[in-house]
Structure formats: structure tokens, C-alpha cells
């Protein structure tokens, strides 16, 4: 294969990944309990990778929610 072909595929993989993000993110959210999603989606890293198990207790501020994954 020509080297330009690999460049093309690499270049197109970036928009393809971005294209997929909304779907992947939505699927990842579907694994979270509803009561957690009603407050925040930040128990996943950028909403994509679950990085904490959802807390069982309720009182939390939205600011601490946002920093839950360390972002």
C-alpha cells in the first residue's frame, strides 16, 4: 500500500472517532443509574469511560460532581 493511503486512513480516523462519540457516549450513559444521570454525567471521564461506581447517597453539589473523575 502507498504511504499516502495510510495517511489518509489516519486522517479520516479522527473525524470518524468524533462522529462516533455521541453514540458511544449515549451508550456509556445507559449503563448509569437514572438518579445519578438526573444530577450529572461526570461519573464518567468526559462522559465516555465510567471511572467511578455511582454513589449510593444523594446530597452532593454539582461542582464536586464535575470533578469526580479528576477533570
Amino acid at each position: 500500500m502507498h504511504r499516502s493511503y495510510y495517511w489518509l486512513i489516519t486522517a479520516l480516523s479522527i473525524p470518524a472517532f468524533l462522529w462516533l462519540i455521541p453514540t458511544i457516549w449515549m451508550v456509556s450513559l445507559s449503563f448509569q443509574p437514572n438518579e445519578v444521570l438526573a444530577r450529572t454525567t461526570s461519573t464518567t471521564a468526559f462522559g465516555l469511560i465510567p471511572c467511578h461506581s455511582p454513589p449510593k447517597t444523594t446530597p452532593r453539589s454539582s461542582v464536586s460532581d464535575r470533578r469526580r473523575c479528576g477533570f
Partner: protein
Amino acid sequence: MAGDQRHKRRGLSQSQAAAVLLLPFLAVYGAFLIYPFFMGVWISLHDWNLLAVAFNPGAKEFIGAENYVRTLWGRNIEWGLFASPVMQTVGVLGIGLAFLGYRQGRLTRATALAIGIAGALFFLLPGFHPGEDGRWYDRRFWPTVGNTILFVGLAVPGVTITALILAAALDGETRAKAILRTIFFLSQVLSVTVVTLIWQIMFSPRQGLIANVTEALGGSPIVWLTDQQFAMAAIVITTVWWSLGIAMILFLAGIQDISKDIYEAAAIDDARGVKAFWYITLPNLKRTITLVVVLQIILHFQVFGQSHLMTQGGPNDSTQVLVRYIYQTAFRDSELGKASAMAVFLFVIMGAFSLVQFIVGREED
């Protein structure tokens, strides 16, 4: 010989057989398309309240073209040269482009005529405005038409250009390209409800992924769906993401129809990559581009779900579109006559674009 005669006696002639085979289709087509269409036109000529007529079929009154006047016209309406400078300038540019294109042989007669008529309409229609003490009878109708045109004006080039570039880049028989094609087509298979749900949460300033990323980068999140500046952009982004797949597939089919010999001949003259795309792919895709653009225009003029589910036409009617307005007039305000008049207006627009596609396609044949 005897067999032939027997066949003639028992069988149907070719035209009779064709009529019998066509009959079921014609019956369904007439019952579900032709009859409702003429019924819609008939309703548009009446003062027809949905609930009143449902309880008392006689509670409708023939009022001729009054619904059209109440929808499209107003009191003391005047025409001015600079009533809407941007739109009217676009119109003049369109007329000029059509004239020059035809004179220089770059545009066919039908294409030049279509662009010229569109330019004339852009020049004439926005010139109408209420004069002193005047007002439109329906203040929401023309802004709604404007929003729909804005949506079409943003979504159609967005979908067409992106799909064309992707199709040109992803044309080929390799596994990697097939996977990438599938990824870009994937969003097309989702229903409007799912797509709007995904993007509503994506755009959410508190929970959305875009807000998460913006905050992580130190910015403050944009309130996409409730900010008048961004609401239409949000709907357009959602639509481009959703409806790119079919356009890409049509372009891929068009590209695969172009003979490889032309590319090989061009490669001898060092026309590869972008040069080949510009001088070979684009001219040979003219018909496909026309088809995709016209299909997209017709499709996007009928936008409803995105506006209805994501913004409910807001904020401040900035994403109110024609089909949603027809729906509200008919089923919320129960003014079925007026809603039908708007639907007929929409049909005229659709019909005009279909006619353009037909004329351009016939001329290129």
C-alpha cells in the same frame, strides 16, 4: 397457430395486463395521496375548525382564498428596494450569476433559468414589508418561513459538502475504508427521536459532553438550546450528523460510475489527488450533485422532529419551522383551514424544486 389464437382468446392484451397490474398501486396511490392532497386544497378554502367540524360536520364555511390572504398577506403591505438588503443582494447576485454563466456557456439553459428564477424570488419576496400603520395578518408566518430557509441554507451545503468530501476520500475497496464508511453511515439508521435525545444531552450545559469538555479546557459552557444565537446552529449540527449517510452513499455510487480510464489518462498528465477530484470527479458528478442537493432541499424543508423535540421552536421562535407551525396551527389552534393553506404553500415550494430537478435532469440527458 392454434395455440396463439387460444392464448389471444383467453389472455389479456399487453395494455390490459398493464392496467390490471397497475390497478392496485393506482388505487392505493389515489386513496392515500391524490385524494388527501385535493382534500387539503379543499379544506384550505374553508373556515374549518378542527374540533367544531368533528362534532358538527356542517360547521364549516367556504371562504375562498381568505386563508391564503390571512397567512401570506397583511394590511398596508408595500414593496421596497432596500427592505431586506442582504436577501435582495443575494437575489441580484443570483440573477447576475445565472446570466453570466449562461452567456459564458458554463451553465445550461435550464440551470441558468432555475438560478435566475430563484434569484428573482429572493429579490422580490423579501422586498414586501408592512408600510405605515401596516402589519402582517399572521406575524409569525414569514419569520417561520425565514427560519426554514435559514435551516435549509445551512444544512444542505453542510450535508452536501461533507458527504462529497467523505465519499471522494472513502472510495475504494479496502477494509479500512469500508469500516470508516460504516461509521459515517451509522448515524443515519437512528430515528429522529433517538438522534434528538442524544444531541439534547450532548448540548446540555450541565450534563452534556460538550459542556464537560469546555469546562475541562477552562471555558464556560454554552447554553446551546436556549440561546437564540446558538439554537439554530445546534439543530443544524444534529441534522448534518444524522443525514449525512444517504448523501455519502449517493456520491459514492456516482463516483464508482466514473470510468477508471479517465483517472488513468489524467494521471499521465500528473493530475492526481485534489487535482483529479477538481477536474474529473466534480464535473462527472454534476448530475449526482444536482440530485443530492434537490433531495436535501425537499427533505429539509420538511424539518419537524429536530425543532419540535430539541427546542420546541424556541427560544423566542428562533427555531420555529414551517411544518411545526402547520402542526401547531392545525392541532393546537384547531385552525385546519389556515394550516392547509400553509401546507399548500409548502407544496408549491417542494413542487418548484422537484420541477427544477426534473428540468435539469432532462436537459443533461
